[in-house]
């Protein structure tokens, strides 16, 4: 067992001192980190907060002296002092040398954002953990395997002996991240660097992983550097907070000070962005009391069948959507919330008839979309449009913005020539972009701007119903509200109805009139958003709400988290 120093040690275990990292480009070295300084202490969790491009991940990798190419350290240093016996300088070491390699994984371990791609797809979990152990401990294979099983048991993976021989793709997302943590902690490091370890996970899984990390920290007494963009997570786990913006540390301090008295405008902006999402949007226009039903879904079912063997027998049926019914009124926004695999996206795609449902009816203004043929669908597809999650993937990189937005107009023969250009310009103005930019390609735009382009394309045909599938999940918090406000304005102006699919309760609360909670292909609860959030009835809804991190450190530990385990029918 390593010596456990108490948090009362005053010397920092890691001191980042005026660190500069540059990327050598054709036009010279461009700095991405500008003289940043902060300390990590044993037994404490330091959160590095910032939005994409702020330099958080580069900082983390520089501590291990693995600056991603073409980056170079061009100033400052990082001192590492695990035992109080005098610090060693990490940045002066040869990045491929023995010295730094003994520290990597042995004394400073790291876990990454995407647990699927961070584990080798072709090696067993056991193989990878045993490797990590044998790199730093002089033990034979058998002993290393026993230690690996112990590490898996420590992160609460059931049946660790058997789990060792499994591959990453046989694990669920949460399990993979647990395995990652087990691997990182297998050599009892002094420092754990976690780079957005829960961002790719569901809220309930996130809550479990955060609890796990907290417990392990108490047991092993290590320092944790936790990188995140989520102020809610920060409020849950941080002792110290370092706020980064575009390669600068703009503010650092204790958790309470940062949340109660933020000094820097950027910190204030981050906090306001989170807090505004804690309540319904101020400018929300509710649907008229006498609004008619625009969409009625009854008993919708969709099964995915897995076929196998010579005769293509059906060996497995997944009920992705299992009897879903709801109605949507004109001008209303209905949220569908649930975890990955709950079927929320599938419902949206059934309504857009990307998928063909197996049973049920979708009544859209008197027309049944389930039985509608291709010709009838062509007409309704003008009125029902979709917005997707990833604005980077849903825009063809080889088309200009003008071509992208004009496409639905041309395909449906609505406009051409000068008229087309005017319409595109008007749509761009509508979503808050400069029409002068219409000849540019998508890569010239930021994530938020791209999502605006996607919105402009969706409203080009003046639809009546928009199905938005996680439209803000890929965006930074401060941009999230902007895009949501844009959608709200369009809803008010055009009388749009929305089906808004999200895993994020805060976003749903901000945007939606009503919400349906989905679990395993069924709607377990549906009702007015405020009603459901303040007074959930179904145990699953309660579990889901209890997992959402609250951006208020003073409320930490006041809630009892629980997990929903469905009864077997």
């Amino acid at each position, binding site marked *: 067992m390593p010596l456990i120093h108490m948090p009362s040690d005053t010397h920092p275990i890691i001191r980042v001192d005026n660190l500069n990292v540059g990327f050598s480009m054709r036009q010279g070295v461009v700095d991405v980190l500008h003289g940043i300084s902060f300390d990590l202490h044993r037994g404490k969790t330091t959160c590095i907060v910032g939005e994409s491009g702020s330099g958080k991940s580069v900082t983390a990798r520089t501590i291990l002296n*693995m600056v991603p190419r073409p980056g170079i350290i061009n100033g400052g240093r990082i001192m590492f002092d695990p035992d109080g016996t005098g610090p060693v300088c990490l940045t002066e070491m040869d990045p491929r040398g023995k010295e730094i390699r003994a520290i990597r994984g042995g004394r400073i371990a790291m876990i990454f954002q995407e647990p699927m*791609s961070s584990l*080798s797809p*072709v090696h067993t979990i056991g193989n990878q953990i045993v*490797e990590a152990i044998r790199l*730093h401990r002089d033990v034979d294979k058998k002993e290393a395997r026993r230690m690996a099983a112990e590490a898996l048991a420590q992160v609460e993976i059931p049946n660790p002996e058997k789990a060792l021989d499994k*591959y990453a793709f046989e694990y669920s997302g949460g399990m993979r991240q647990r395995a990652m943590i087990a691997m990182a902690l297998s050599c009892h490091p002094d420092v754990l660097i976690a780079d957005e370890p829960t961002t790719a996970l569901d809220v309930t899984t996130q809550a479990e992983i955060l609890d796990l990390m907290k417990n392990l920290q108490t047991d092993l007494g290590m320092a944790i550097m936790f990188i995140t963009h989520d102020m809610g997570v920060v409020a849950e786990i941080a002792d110290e907070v370092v706020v980064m913006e575009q390669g600068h540390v703009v503010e650092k301090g204790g958790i309470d000070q940062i949340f109660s008295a933020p000094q820097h405008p950027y910190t204030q902006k981050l906090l306001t962005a989170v807090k505004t999402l804690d309540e319904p949007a101020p400018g929300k226009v509710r649907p008229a009391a006498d609004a008619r039903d625009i969409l009625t879904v009854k008993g919708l079912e969709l099964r995915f069948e897995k076929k196998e063997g010579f005769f293509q027998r059906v060996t497995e049926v997944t009920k992705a959507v299992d009897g879903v019914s709801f109605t949507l009124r004109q001008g209303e926004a209905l949220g569908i919330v649930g975890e990955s695999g709950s079927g929320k996206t599938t419902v949206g795609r059934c309504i857009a008839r990307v998928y063909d449902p197996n049973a049920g009816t979708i009544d859209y203004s008197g027309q049944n979309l389930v039985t509608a043929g291709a010709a009838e669908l062509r007409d309704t597809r003008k009125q029902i449009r979709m917005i997707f999650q990833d604005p980077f993937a849903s825009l063809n990189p080889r088309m200009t913005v003008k071509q992208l937005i004009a496409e639905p107009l041309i395909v449906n023969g609505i406009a051409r020539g000068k008229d087309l250009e005017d319409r595109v310009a008007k749509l761009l103005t509508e979503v808050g972009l400069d029409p002068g930019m219409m000849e540019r390609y998508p890569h010239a735009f930021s994530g938020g701007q791209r999502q605006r382009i996607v919105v402009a394309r969706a409203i080009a045909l003046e639809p009546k119903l928009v199905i938005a599938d996680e439209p803000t999940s890929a965006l930074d918090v401060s941009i999230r509200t902007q895009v949501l406000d844009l959608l709200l304005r369009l809803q008010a102006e055009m009388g749009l109805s929305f089906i808004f699919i999200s895993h994020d309760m805060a976003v749903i609360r901000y945007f939606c009139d009503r919400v349906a909670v989905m679990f395993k292909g069924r709607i377990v609860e549906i009702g007015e958003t405020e009603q459901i959030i303040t007074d959930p009835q179904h145990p699953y809804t309660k579990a889901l709400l209890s997992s959402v991190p609250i951006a208020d450190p003073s409320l930490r530990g006041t809630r009892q988290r629980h997990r929903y385990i469905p009864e077997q029918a």
Partner: protein
Amino acid sequence: MIWRFILKRIIWMVPFMFAVSLVAFLLIQAPPGDYLTTYIAKLGESNEVMDQASVDNLRARFGLDKPLYVQYFKWVSNLLVGDFGMSFEWRQPVSELVWQRMGLTMMLSFSTLLFTWAVAFPIGVYSAVRKYSIGDYIATTIGFIGLATPNFLLALVLMYIGVVHFGSDVGGLFSSEYKNAPWSWPKVWNLIQHLWLPVVVLGTSATASLIRIMRANLLDELNRPYVDTARAKGLSEFWLIMKYPVRVALNPFVSTIGWVLPNLVSGAVVTAIVLSLPTAGPLMLQALLSQDMYLAGAFVLLLSSLTVIGMLISDILLVLLDPRVRYE
């Protein structure tokens, strides 16, 4: 699990080979006329004339007067008991002609495959890891030249250099004194001395394309998060690259076995003629030209089986190499 997979694949080969035999037979029958029309035309060139009666007689003896499906059925049923029929032109059983040539062909192909991998693998890995270095540029340039140069030209150039500058005896797989001698150690040594030239000639373009494939695959893998994970564990740069990204990038490498095998046999015809190699290629070309249908059919069938077997081998290797394939 894996045995079931192999068994399933082998069972699938049976109907597949039947289909191949049918296509092979139809292909050989596709040009107008048959062996006898070619034969008569040849005789006509030397002013010999055959009377109609003996033509009909020959036609009946070879079974060429029967309808196509009867001929096919007879051929296939004989194949099942290992009888490939008689070669019209050589007046010898096809199997004797074929096996004699196939042995050397297989050996040459196998040596070429080994050469290709042994050269392409390290260079490909080097090119990817040291992207845009001098070494990468040199490998890339040589690779493109290797891809673009026709094999026969390379063969001629190497032969010229061999004869003029080293005075060595090139061409063929044996020196004349060993050609018809029984197998002995000196004969094996003689074979090895002759083998390098066709191996280099035949392997160059495949090596070049494999280098490019390996480089492209590895470049994709080198930036994956799991490489970062391995680095963060403290693994040395060499081992982490060998164990993780190279292992994943190996899949397409293994897939090439399937097409390399038949390619070496059939694609090497021109080279084999230039180098006068006693391999299957030139014989097959001759058989196709003279419409020697049983001989040609046997070759087409063997090439197809080689393809199928090559695919089977590469599939089995893939399954061993990549657990994701196993579970699908």
